[in-house]
């Protein structure tokens, strides 16, 4: 068997898996609308509904691949784009329509198929019947032929039967005859046999035999006859059978013919029936085909529309994504540039700062060190030069002089020497030497004994009282070599001056796309460039500062080191050179004069005399010395021990006496304790500003006499004489000195330096051995204490026990902590202050009598009664003191806010808030509105107290809804909104999400929206509830998005929205006239614009109600659409009715003129303002235009008649108060009011 290749064994299963699995791996992004069940047609819109049967030929592009190119994490969805959402919705609508019509097509097709199938069956049945008939007829003919043939053959068959009968008879007779003969023969045989048996003769036997043969022969004949007879019978049987068969055949075939006839009769009847069925069915099929064709035509139309929708949607999506990615890239580029710049700037800032600091410190250190070294070396070099010079000049001079002298002296010496030696040899040197050696040996013993014994005794005496320590060495600067990172790290979360995430010239999603990449890339690049460059910058700053500090320090002239160097250099060079130079000259001169001395010279004579004397002396001395040495050494050895011991004891006693009779002081340490302020807060281990300090000192007195002349000074100038320092003791002088902590801020460091003085009264070497400066009597160089200035007690967690409500008392709580090292006894008084308008602290904290570690105080009380103190920031502060001495303060001021139940304030906006969530925003908003008196507050956190208003809802209010952007307030308020009436809602939040969230609540179901333009405010989205779609809603309520900056501007507009149609018309009538119409004030324009906006909102709501009243293919309630121009309560219709009721004159002219604009507004809204016209159905679109034209009908002719010029002018300025620009599709996001 062939072996499978190894590779195939491995890869074959893999390939198989891939082959089978590949159909299962579907690209999730690109979806063709050919799924079963529910599918996400609109991509990330969340608006898709249901599955569909067949789909468009253009794929819906929901690819998320663009996110792979997106830098950062998108903070938005594509459907946040209003137009994208709208296109998705449109597409879905068309999809649904297509779905519906496809279902109908399918149903129709099924019906047609069934009909056709049935018809086919019918036809087949007919054919079958007809075929059967034909076959039957053919069969019948054949049968008839057969019957005829058979009938013809009957006579001959009969005849045959007759013949056969005759044959049977004949053969039977023959047989009978043969039988008779045989019987006879047998009888004869028997007889013969009987005869032969009686007399068996040959003749008899021959007869018998003959008879037997005869019998046999006759038997055979009989057999033959039998056979013939049988055959004849058989033949007869056959002939009879044949005849019978023929007869039977004839009967059978005749009955068959009869059956065929009957069957054909039935068939003929059936054929008739089937033909009728076929005819009927044909009609049905035709009808069904026609219906199917019709529906298919609709389907095709919708299919085309669907493809178009998808194409438009895909194209727009593509463009949108392109724009987003472009904005994102721009954000990335901008961020890379800005981040890099800020990162480098920050690196420069921090790196330079730290580098400079370290460089300055190290540079100064190194500069001083090197400067000192340099000056020392310079001094040394200079010294060497001086030394050399000096060595040269002095050497020569001295050499010559001394050489001459030496030469003369040599000669003198030589000659004198000889004479002297001779004289010495004859003297008393030996005797003298002996005597002197003995004396000297004794002296040396005494001296050595003194030296060694003294030192030993001194050391012993000292060590009796003290010990000594070791020295240490260093290599580099302080704590160099510890590996925490000194080069500054990038502070996280910090942004620089170039951080500009607001997306430049972009709006909507591009704005966000720009921001998303900007923020991420900014931080990334900032960090990257910071870390890449900070080390270099640090090093550069360090080096620069190091260099500068080093230069400055180095430039200094270190006199001390220079002098020391010079001294040493001079000494070194002189000592090195002088000898050689001098010796050289000396040798030369010496040799000369030695050879030829000046005998008259003084040196010769002196030398001679001296040498003679010396030689004499020397030899004398030598002799004496030899004797001396010998006797000296012997005497020394005999006396040294006793002498050493004697002096040891002497010094020991001296030093001991010094210790015994004097103090010998050594400073050990000092301690600084806190002594309180006016007796308060002492000894708690905490040093407060202004607190007295008490300094304890530990001094060793090795001496046996108390030190009474010691004093101590503190760095603040104080000096105090110390009490007696006990002898032989390590004395702790408690409270040696008092000082006080500086009156500086808490947290700062106060430094005290303590020095001890005690003038010496005995040998400085011993008594002052531990002194820092014996000549000044300074015992220690200065003991430094650094303390942090703090309070011993701490107040923290000052807060109320719950939410303060106006007119309700509430507990005030605070934690009291003890940071000191001891228990505190009272009375400790806690004082609380607050920046309220009224007096709100109804009870202060009781004094605390004792405090160990911590205590929670709960006995103070606060009650606010004045409205001026509610919903306003209240800051509580506290201090704790004892006997007027402050001991602690509150670590962090307690900020709170007092709440109040809702109170009706006519004419004031209502701020709807959950003060638990958005306290800061509430306070900001109230501040903008002029304080609590400028608004009513409906605080949703006080559901109990505000129960009534929450149950009843609000009426005719401008409501400012403050939400954090998480929907907490908005969603909780939805129930109240449902009960409210004629309110306008401004959703205020910095993230501009409030209105979006509101739209998800029940009250805003099927809410209408469009983006009108209002003079003085700009263009922004307006949303309004739809009372036709939400059961229980009392009229439309308007909502807009605002932020801090735009809120106050929008309040007056909100007031206009609450005004009813009649009031608005009246206002317009009073403000619009011939003079003002074409040059109105902003306020007047706003009135007119709001009127139109309100009117259009009614159209939008009715349009929605109409659409929802039925399906695409029919069933909608036309009456709803007709309301647009019939319902007199609607704004435009009210205007029409009022115009109708008033004659045209100057007082009503403004209204008439406005009527022209109203018609224009309605017309354009229905045809050319995408926000509205895209959603209108043909019917509602037509109704809208009708509403306008009905108004125009009332105003056109009267105006033309009244004033033709004015008439022309108004028609040239039809759009004057139209609150949108026709032909625009506002792509703006919800936040435009803010721009």
């Amino acid at each position, binding site marked *: 068997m062939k072996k499978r290749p190894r590779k195939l064994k491995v890869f074959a299963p893999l390939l198989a898996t891939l082959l089978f699995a590949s159909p299962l791996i579907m690209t999730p992004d690109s979806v063709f609308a050919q799924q079963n069940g529910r599918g996400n047609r609109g991509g990330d819109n969340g608006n898709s509904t249901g599955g569909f049967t067949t789909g468009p030929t253009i794929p819906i592009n929901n690819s998320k691949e663009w996110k792979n190119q997106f830098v950062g994490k998108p903070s938005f969805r594509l459907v946040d784009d209003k137009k994208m959402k709208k296109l998705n919705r449109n597409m879905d609508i068309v999809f649904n329509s297509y779905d519906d019509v496809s279902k109908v097509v399918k149903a129709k097709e099924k019906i047609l198929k069934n009909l056709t199938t049935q018809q086919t069956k019918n036809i087949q049945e007919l054919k079958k019947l007809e075929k059967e008939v034909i076959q039957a007829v053919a069969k019948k003919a054949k049968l008839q032929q057969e019957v005829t043939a058979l009938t013809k053959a009957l006579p001959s068959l009969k005849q045959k039967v007759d013949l056969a009968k005759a044959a049977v008879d004949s053969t039977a007779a023959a047989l009978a005859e043969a039988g008779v003969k045989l019987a006879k023969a047998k009888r004869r045989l028997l007889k013969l046999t009987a005869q032969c048996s009686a007399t068996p003769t040959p003749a008899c036997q021959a007869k018998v035999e003959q008879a037997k043969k005869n019998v046999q022969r006759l038997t055979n004949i009989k057999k033959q006859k039998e056979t013939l007879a049988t055959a004849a019978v058989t033949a007869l049987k056959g002939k009879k059978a044949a005849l019978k068969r023929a007869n039977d055949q004839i009967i059978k075939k005749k009955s068959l013919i009869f059956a065929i006839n009957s069957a054909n009769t039935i068939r003929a009847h059936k054929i008739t029936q089937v033909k009728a069925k076929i005819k009927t069915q044909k009609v049905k099929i035709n009808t069904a085909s026609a219906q199917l064709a019709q529906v298919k035509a609709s389907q095709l139309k919708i299919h085309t529309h669907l493809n178009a929708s998808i194409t438009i949607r895909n194209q727009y999506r593509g463009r949108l994504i392109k724009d987003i990615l472009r904005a994102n890239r721009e954000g990335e580029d901008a961020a890379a540039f800005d981040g890099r710049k800020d990162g480098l700037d920050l690196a420069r800032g921090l790196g330079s700062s730290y580098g400079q600091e370290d460089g300055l410190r190290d540079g100064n250190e190194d500069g001083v060190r090197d400067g000192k070294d340099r000056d020392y070396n310079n001094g040394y070099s200079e010294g060497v030069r001086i030394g050399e010079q000096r060595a040269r000049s002095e050497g020569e001079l001295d050499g010559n002089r001394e050489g001459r002298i030496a030469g003369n002296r040599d000669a003198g010496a030589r000659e004198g020497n000889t004479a002297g030696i001779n004289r010495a040899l004859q003297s008393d040197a030996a005797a003298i030497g002996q005597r002197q050696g003995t004396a000297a040996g004794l002296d040396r013993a005494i001296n050595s004994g003194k030296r060694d014994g003294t030192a030993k005794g001194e050391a012993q005496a000292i060590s009796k009282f003290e010990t000594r320590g070791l020295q240490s060495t260093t290599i580099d600067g302080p704590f160099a070599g510890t590996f925490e990172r000194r080069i500054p790290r990038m502070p996280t979360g910090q942004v620089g001056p170039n951080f500009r995430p607001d997306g430049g010239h972009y709006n909507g999603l591009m704005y966000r796309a720009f921001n998303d990449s900007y923020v991420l890339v900014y931080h990334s690049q900032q960090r990257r460039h910071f*870390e890449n460059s900070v080390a270099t910058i640090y090093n550069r700053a360090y080096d620069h500062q190091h260099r500068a500090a080093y230069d400055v320090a180095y430039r200094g002239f270190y006199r001390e080191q220079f002098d020391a160097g010079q001294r040493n250099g001079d000494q070194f060079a002189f000592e090195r050179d002088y000898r050689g130079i001098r010796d050289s000259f000396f040798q030369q001169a010496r040799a000369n004069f030695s050879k030829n001395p000046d005998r008259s010279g003084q040196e010769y004579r002196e030398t001679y005399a001296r040498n003679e004397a010396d030689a004499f002396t020397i030899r004398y001395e030598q002799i004496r010395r030899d004797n001396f040495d010998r006797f000296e050494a012997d005497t020394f050895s005999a006396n040294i021990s006793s002498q050493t011991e004697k002096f040891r004891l002497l010094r020991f006693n001296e030093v001991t006496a010094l210790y015994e009779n004097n103090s010998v002081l050594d400073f050990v340490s000092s301690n600084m304790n806190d002594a309180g302020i006016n007796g308060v807060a002492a000894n708690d281990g905490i040093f407060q500003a202004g607190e007295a300090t008490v300094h304890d000192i530990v001094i060793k007195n090795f001496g046996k006499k108390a030190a009474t002349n010691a004093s101590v000074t503190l760095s603040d100038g104080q000096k105090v004489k110390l009490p007696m320092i006990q002898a032989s003791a390590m004395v702790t002088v408690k409270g040696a000195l008092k000082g006080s902590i500086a009156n500086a801020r808490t947290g700062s460091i106060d430094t005290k330096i303590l020095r001890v003085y005690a003038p010496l009264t005995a040998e400085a070497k011993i008594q002052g051995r531990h002194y820092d400066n014996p000549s000044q009597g300074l015992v220690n160089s200065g003991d430094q204490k650094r303390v942090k200035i703090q309070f011993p007690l701490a107040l923290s967690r000052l807060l109320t026990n719950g939410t303060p409500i106006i007119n309700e008392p509430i507990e005030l709580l605070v934690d009291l902590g003890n940071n000191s090292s001891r228990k505190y006894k009272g009375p400790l008084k806690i004082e609380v202050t607050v920046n309220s308008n009224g007096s709100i602290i109804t009870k202060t904290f009781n004094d605390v009598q004792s405090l160990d570690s911590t205590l929670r105080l709960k006995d103070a009380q606060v009650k606010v009664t004045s409205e001026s103190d509610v919903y306003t920031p209240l800051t509580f502060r506290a201090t704790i003191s004892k006997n007027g001495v402050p001991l602690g303060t509150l670590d962090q001021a307690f900020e709170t806010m007092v709440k109040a139940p809702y109170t009706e304030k006519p004419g004031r906006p209502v701020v709807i808030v959950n003060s638990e969530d958005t306290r800061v925003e509430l306070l900001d908003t109230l501040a903008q509105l002029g304080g609590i008196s400028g608004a009513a507050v409906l605080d949703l956190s006080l559901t109990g107290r505000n129960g009534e208003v929450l149950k009843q809802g609000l009426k005719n209010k401008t409501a400012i809804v403050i939400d954090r952007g998480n929907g907490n307030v908005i969603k909780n308020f939805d129930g109240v909104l449902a009960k409210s009436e004629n309110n306008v809602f401004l959703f205020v939040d910095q993230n501009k999400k409030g209105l979006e969230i509101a739209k998800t609540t029940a009250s805003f179901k099927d809410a209408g929206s469009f983006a009108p333009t209002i003079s003085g405010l700009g263009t922004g989205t307006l949303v309004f509830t739809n009372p036709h779609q939400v059961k229980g809603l009392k009229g439309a309520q308007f909502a807009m998005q605002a932020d801090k900056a735009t809120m106050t501007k929008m309040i007056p507009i909100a007031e206009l929205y609450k005004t009813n149609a009649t009031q608005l018309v009246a206002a317009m009538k009073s403000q619009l006239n011939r003079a003002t119409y074409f040059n109105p004030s902003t306020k007047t324009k706003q009135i007119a614009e709001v009127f139109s906006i309100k009117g259009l909102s009614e159209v939008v709501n009715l349009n929605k109600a109409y659409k929802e009243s039925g399906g695409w293919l029919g069933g909608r309630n036309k009456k709803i659409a007709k309301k647009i121009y019939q319902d007199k309560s609607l704004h435009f219709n009210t205007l029409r009715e009022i115009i109708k009721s008033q004659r045209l004159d100057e007082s009503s002219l403004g209204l008439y003129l406005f009527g022209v604009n109203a018609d224009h507004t309605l017309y354009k809204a229905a045809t050319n303002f995408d926000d509205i016209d895209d959603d209108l159905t043909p019917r509602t679109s037509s109704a809208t235009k009708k509403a306008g034209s009905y108004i125009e009908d009332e105003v056109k002719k009267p105006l033309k008649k009244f004033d033709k010029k004015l008439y022309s002018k108004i028609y040239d300025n039809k759009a004057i108060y139209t609150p949108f620009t026709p032909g625009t599709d506002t792509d703006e996001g919800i936040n435009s009011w803010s721009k």
Partner: protein
Amino acid sequence: MKASTLGVNKIKKLCISFIMAQVIFLGPLLSDPTYAQINSSKRVLKIAVFDTPFCPKLINKTKKNIEIFPPSLPFAAQRGPFVECYEDLFGRHGLHVLNHLLKVIPKLDYKIEIHPIIIYTRKGMQSERSWSNALQKAKEKKVDLLLLAVGLPSQKPLKVLSDLPFNTFMASGQISGRIRKSTLVWPQSIKSNDRSIMIGAYLPPTDQLPDQYLQDKTLLHVEKIDYYFSGGTYQDRLTGSSRAVTTALGKALLLCARINFIDGNLKALKKCLKSKKRDLKDSFSNFNFATF
């Protein structure tokens, strides 16, 4: 050949294969010191920490089974080994290293002794002599491991100190002040792979950049670094390779708790750490940090 001989040969082959399989698969396991030591682990692990003086009052509470011994000052030049606590207001390096070590060191089922040994004077001076005395002290205490978040910088090769006869976790060191890439730092400059594990620091992700790791370009001895750990953020007290090496030691003890630190042989520990190794990557270059 007879059938019986064939059969015997087959059996022989099977036996040989079986034995070889045992040797191949079990041999390393049997010779693995980790395995060999698990059944006879030491009861106490002694770690010496060379560093600056510190105020003992500021040391955080220790965990059970972990004891911090009083610090040793091998040369009695100063009055006591402690910094006066009011001087040590912000804590010295040695204090931060100890507190961080206490934070990262796990509670194991055997005792851990931490022996601080001071190599700096209170004024911040160190020398070859202070190091050699410290090493002598460590030898006397028979420590198993050294933690060095420090080093001895010099411009020229040292005269007294040569090799480092202890198992050591050492920080790679950073540029700062006088210390540059060219500065010789002992013992980092003579790091031997048998007895030392060198740890470097990386810059960790931040809140704004949760996926960004960066190489710390101020590190010294990059070519000798075995593993990297976070160098902390700008808000941490202990940063840089000091923090990284302390964290590494704690993590190593946690991951390789059953490894016994045999004198002179870090092999078992290195093998264990290698098995736990994973790589991080610098977000902008191809530089990889091995960590565990």
